[in-house]
């Protein structure tokens, strides 16, 4: 992995990444330096906007909570824009937990059950569907969709826009009139926003409404400081280099823990089955590939679904112990510390049914979209290309694989049919190229190959 600790120094959007020195500071001090620089620019900088790129598990939410408290402390009215209600509720909960006295408004919709009842625990949190009811509160938090309907309020002196890379440019257009300055935080490697209708006619325009909000922002304000959180605290040393190389080739990051700092052990020994062997491989190396025989299958490949379920069951049965930097005592890898990731909803439904029939409950089973932003000890991933006769743009999308491969603190087991590399060879990446559209990510085809090549070293046949 490249030594890029000093990349946390402020870059301008157009400038090149400054090249690093050969000595790496300790990850904690690198991350702290980055956070200080971000807060300095946000609180006292001359720019109207500050952008923070945050790779998976780099402490984005921690940063948002801290920035919100410090901004509130200056007395500047603050609005926070998140993308989903779940994200809003999570942020409000964390903010109120961190600072119980802080007056926080949760602006919500007028539908039934518009917010998570967990917020009722916090006496300082005011909930309302009308922004006028929240006037004067230090911080008001809502979704971009709800903010877009706010009229006759504000402008707020300061905003924080969370998950800004998943926000579309037109959504920012609808809310940007509400604030004077803003801190934009997000992960450039996750799923891009998209539109179901053709938007090619605006491709290459700085304000292409279907592009990400950050792309538009930086195109119009190229001098804004762009920071990067340089350390993933979630991903272990075994995963950060691969995820960084495959999905963030031009903005690398590293893991907060070194090799061996995290360990996964099982109390129950291996029974010698392929499932146990792939678990052992994943426990020792961080990655495991359970490779089923090559076959073209429909999406809900019964054999692959059964294999995923079997891996989860054995993972629980073998009573995993996760050792890490957080505590000297190992933590039990219980069902709530495990997730299964799939590309499609029907696959998730099939895995849930298979787990239920094995009597396994409490494991999160969801699509990449819904696992975005979440964290687990061990993840089991049904490879998006497993058994497919074709490789569509959907399945090749870098963000999808990136989300699935970057949710874990300890280990990731991928279940896949053999033959995906050959499938990729037969399905070219003859992507169209639009003039003026900035290339941010590697090609999905290339990233898939990079991940497969790495997994091949950790393969166990079914």
């Amino acid at each position, binding site marked *: 992995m490249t030594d890029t600790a000093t990349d946390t120094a402020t870059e301008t959007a157009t400038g090149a990444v400054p090249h690093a020195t050969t000595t790496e500071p300790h990850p904690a001090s690198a991350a702290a330096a980055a956070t200080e620089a971000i807060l300095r620019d946000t609180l006292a900088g001359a720019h*109207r*906007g500050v952008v923070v790129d945050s790779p998976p598990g780099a402490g984005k939410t921690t940063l948002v909570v801290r920035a919100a408290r410090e901004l509130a402390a200056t007395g500047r009215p603050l609005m926070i824009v998140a993308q989903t209600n779940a994200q809003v509720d999570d942020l409000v909960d964390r903010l109120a937990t961190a600072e119980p006295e802080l007056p926080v408004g949760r602006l919500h919709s007028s539908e039934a059950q518009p917010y998570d009842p967990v917020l009722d625990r916090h006496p300082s949190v005011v909930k309302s569907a009308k922004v006028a009811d929240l006037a004067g509160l230090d911080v008001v938090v809502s979704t971009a*969709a709800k903010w*877009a*309907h706010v009229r006759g309020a504000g402008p707020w002196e300061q905003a924080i826009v969370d998950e800004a890379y998943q926000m579309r*440019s*037109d959504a*920012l*257009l*609808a809310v*940007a*009139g509400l604030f004077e300055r*803003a801190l934009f935080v997000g992960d450039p490697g996750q799923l891009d926003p998209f*539109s*179901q*209708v*053709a*938007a090619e*006619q*605006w491709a290459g*325009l*700085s*304000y*292409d*409404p*279907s592009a990400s*909000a950050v792309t*538009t*922002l930086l195109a*119009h*304000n190229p001098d804004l400081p762009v920071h990067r959180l340089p350390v993933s605290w979630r991903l272990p040393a075994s995963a950060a280099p691969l995820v960084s190389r495959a999905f963030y080739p031009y903005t690398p990051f590293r893991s907060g823990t070194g090799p061996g700092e995290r360990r996964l052990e099982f109390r129950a020994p291996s029974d010698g089955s392929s499932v146990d062997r792939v678990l052992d491989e994943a426990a020792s190396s961080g990655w495991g590939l359970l490779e089923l025989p090559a076959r073209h299958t429909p999406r809900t490949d019964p054999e692959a679904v059964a294999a995923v379920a079997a891996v989860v069951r054995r993972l629980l049965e073998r009573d995993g112990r996760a050792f890490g930097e957080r505590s000297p005592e190992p933590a039990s890898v219980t069902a709530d510390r495990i997730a299964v990731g799939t590309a499609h*909803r*029907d696959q998730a*439904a099939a895995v849930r049914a298979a787990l239920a029939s094995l009597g396994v409950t409490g494991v999160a089973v969801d699509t990449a979209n819904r696992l975005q932003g979440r964290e687990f000890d061990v993840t089991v991933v049904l490879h998006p290309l497993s058994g497919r006769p074709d490789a569509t743009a959907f399945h090749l999308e870098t963000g999808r694989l990136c989300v699935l491969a970057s949710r874990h603190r300890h280990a990731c087991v991928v279940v896949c049919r053999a033959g995906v590399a050959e499938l990729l060879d037969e399905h070219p990446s003859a992507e169209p190229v639009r003039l003026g559209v900035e290339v941010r990510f590697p090609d999905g085809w290339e990233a898939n190959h990079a991940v497969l090549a790495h997994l091949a070293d950790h393969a166990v046949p079914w």
Partner: protein
Amino acid sequence: MSLISTLARVEAAATGRARPLTTVRHRHLAERPMVLVPLTTAGEVGAPLGALVGTDRDAPRLLVVPQPRDRTLRFAFLAELAEVVLPHLESAQGTVELQERAETDPETGKRVKVEVELCADAPQLIVPNTAGISYVRLLGRSTRFRRTAEEEPDSPHPAPARLPLLGRWLTHYGERARVPGSSLLLAVTEVLGRHWATGQSRLEDQHLGALLAWIEAEEGTSGAEAALRVELARDGDGVPLTPPAGPATDPAFDNRRLAPAIARHDAGLPGAEEEIRELVASQLRPTWDAVWRALDLLRALPPGARVADRWKRDRWSYTAHRDRLRAGEPPQPRRDDAVTAARKLAARETALAELAAQEALDDPLVMAERRLSGEAFAGEVVRVEPAWSEGKRPMPRPLVTVRTDDLPHLEEGDRVHRALEGGKSQPGVFVASPAPGLFTVRLTGGMGRGKVPEAGSVPEEGETVCWTLFEHAPRGGPDLPDPEETPWTHGGPPDPDALDAPDPVTPEDLL
């Protein structure tokens, strides 16, 4: 591609004849559409070669540019095109109906009802394929900024008087064609492809002649073979017997037929121009006839119940453009500003969701696709339990249980919708699946305001109902700021005085 349409393609491949994808027609067809079949010059953007255009299938107007690189001849062609097309596009401006619309009063800021004009009909334009639609846009782009002699008396090459106006209309039609479900400007390959599946790929369906061969094949004949002949049969010079539907010409035609004729024309040989006209007509006429045959096929399908509803939106679009022209607004800019682009995208997303919902509601075969994909379920009502909401004024919230073989992707609390007679829809919430194949929905509206549901508003046991997980009338996005209030994140307000200049006329126009 849904599995049902894949299956239709497989069936078509097995039988050699196209198979239906719908049971009704999902696009509006005007009684008297104008068909435009354009041809362009290879390698030269914006240099038309000719066109067949008109509203009478037996009497198309043939327009030909005998030397496409000659600007004078090009302008003569465009002037003639304007002469034929503009009267059609302007024909529906006068007959209007009055409609009520809510508008924001600029003085009080309140929403008030105003009466506005809506054109009673809108002229329709039909081209053979999507490349034809792109070409309409290109013609619009290349002509709307031109200056006429009146606007620019000193110009050495003034544009014909009505040409910029034609450009603005074509631009409007070209933009409207990007709205899902719109019908002002249609490409017949697209419309045919929506209604029939062939036994070849969608890529090959772009060839109008081949696509038609699959659909027109009579029982007992092979559309596959007919399509192959249309696609591949060539004469001794290698010129295809069925010319491509344009706007690009076949290279062998260019090299073997057209180029020598143009050379004779350039040399001033007598009869050369007539020869070019005949050659161009020979390439256009088969496509012209094919477009009309395609329209016959489509007319034979009954229109979907909600097609007229979408056509009304096309009429609004037409009326709005008419009003902009009457208000003396400048031509559409080269590229949209930030707010306009975002508004268009939002409108198209709403239109797409609406189209998807309406097609399914209008057509059991389309609904079958949604049922197969878990987005809808249909079955017999096996149980109805009366129930009421809690609160001061209890409202009816009956529980309806349906038996179905469908496998909807439902989670507790998901909203579902059911179409009622008269175009309204009834909301419900999924409660539980009491047993495999049984789904219970709590009705949450559409039963009137009383404590007892209105008669007929709750389905009865034994009745067949179809619930969808998608909304029937999807809402649009939020209001966006006015362009003059574009925020700093999007570059601030556009310069109000920045008008697009006409393309410079350089000697390069004539190579």
